[in-house]
């Protein structure tokens, strides 16, 4: 390796474009295979889904129209504890992973019934192996005493959990750097040029030579993919988030809409809007989120809000990831998804292994996630 010998030039085995949760997870996995990895981050102008999300390591309901996505999600959730412990061992950062099960709270009987049907058909599609429970109001109240009196019930997923996403990102960066990774924050990548079976990546004035390149730039992948013969039909989908003050611990489990962090902070969210690249907030959406949270947990009516933000999900037309190697330029890979927290352990595990040596994962078919499915 002659990395850094020439100013403005870097050599690496693999360049990963995107320094968020997805890019770093893949980079950490490639380091486990002994690779020299350069992660190229856009810097503070990036849209940064990794800093705006809800922190769920979530299984239940994911992949309702795609059993392979359910398998991928569950495999990642199973590998998460080891992944988290590895980060903590290497960095000393406790990323607050808790996988004690999660609740999807349904306000109405109709909502609860629909949810039960959805999870039942998922269980059928997965040959009966899909654990969940349906809790009526009193069963839910037995788990969460503070649940609101008008809530119909919840579905319970024993494999669900949550994590502190900011500590996670920090721990991933630290472990990456400790293993000798190069994190280059040199602005957006302007060009990827296939050269002699490898690639040259131009980011600002910086030139990175590498034998493989991984596109993990979130919404930025859309513009980068065609440069290496790939197709990334991605659109932003905005979620708004409310943060309330720290209060005494009352919620033992993450839910799809409200969670309490290890420090006691309350996070509320789960709105979905198509508003382009606008990551602002709006009063009507925040009010709806707050009203639903108070209906779920009436004690939240007393709690003050301290912050809100909008963040953009990275969405394909069917909502599922794209994992694909370029046929035109082998060695170029597209890795894009909207569940960068849940799937981090899979990205550092089987996805990185596939990029390293082409080995197909045992538990799910990579073919399912080929971008070809969007070509008609």
């Amino acid at each position, binding site marked *: 390796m002659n990395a850094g010998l020439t100013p403005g030039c870097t050599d690496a085995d693999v360049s990963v474009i995107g320094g968020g949760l997805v890019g770093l997870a893949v980079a950490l996995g490639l380091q486990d295979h002994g690779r020299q990895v350069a992660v190229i981050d856009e810097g503070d102008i990036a849209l940064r889904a990794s800093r705006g999300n809800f922190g769920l390591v979530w299984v239940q309901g994911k992949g309702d129209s795609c059993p392979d996505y359910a398998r991928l999600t569950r495999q990642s959730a199973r590998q998460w504890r080891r992944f988290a412990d590895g980060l903590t061992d290497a960095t000393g950062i406790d990323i607050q992973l808790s996988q004690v099960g999660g609740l999807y709270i349904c306000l109405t009987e109709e909502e609860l019934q629909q949810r039960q049907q959805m999870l039942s058909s998922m269980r059928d599609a997965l040959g009966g192996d899909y654990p969940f429970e349906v809790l009526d109001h009193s069963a839910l109240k037995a788990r969460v005493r503070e649940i609101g009196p008008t809530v119909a019930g919840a579905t319970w997923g024993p494999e669900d959990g949550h994590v502190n996403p900011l500590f996670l990102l920090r721990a991933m960066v630290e472990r990456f750097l400790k293993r000798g990774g190069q994190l280059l924050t040199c602005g957006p990548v302007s060009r990827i040029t296939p050269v002699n079976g490898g690639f040259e990546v131009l980011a600002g004035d910086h030139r990175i030579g590498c034998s493989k390149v991984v596109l993990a730039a979130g919404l930025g992948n859309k513009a980068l993919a065609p440069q290496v013969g790939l197709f990334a039909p991605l659109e932003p989908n905005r979620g708004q988030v409310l943060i309330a003050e720290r*209060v*005494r611990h*009352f919620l033992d489990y993450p839910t799809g809409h409200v969670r309490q962090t290890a420090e*006691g902070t309350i996070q509320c969210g789960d709105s979905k809007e198509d508003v382009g690249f606008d990551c602002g907030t709006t009063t009507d959406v925040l009010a709806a989120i707050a009203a639903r949270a108070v209906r779920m947990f009436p004690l939240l009516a007393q709690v003050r809000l*301290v912050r809100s933000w909008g963040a953009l999900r990275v969405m394909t037309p069917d909502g599922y990831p794209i994992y694909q190697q370029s046929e035109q330029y082998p060695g170029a890979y597209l890795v894009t998804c909207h569940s960068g927290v849940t799937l981090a352990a899979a990205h550092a595990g089987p996805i990185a292994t596939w990029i390293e040596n082409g080995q197909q994962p045992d538990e799910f078919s990579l073919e399912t996630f080929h971008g070809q499915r969007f070509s008609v």
Partner: protein
Amino acid sequence: MASDSAFKRLPANPADAVEIWVEGQAVTARAGDSVAAAVLAAGLGPTRTTPVSGSPRAPYCMMGVCFECLMEIDGQPNTQGCMILVTDGMKVSFQRGARDIPECSA
């Protein structure tokens, strides 16, 4: 932990004296002071302990950003002392750990 206050009153801008009660102790402040400023000027504090480690904290940014100045002001816990102006007879106590929220009877 009492300590000499590093906060000195400027001789300019005289204002009406206001009496507030901090941890049961009478403190003379000036109209227009924030609670955080009044408490610091009186040399009192630390004004909270964190919910995470229990370590002591005191007002820091004085402009509503850092949340280090959380106190219980007139019965309202977790209130930012730097964002609230003193009023005569105001009762202030320090915030210890996470605030409690009373359970709702369902």
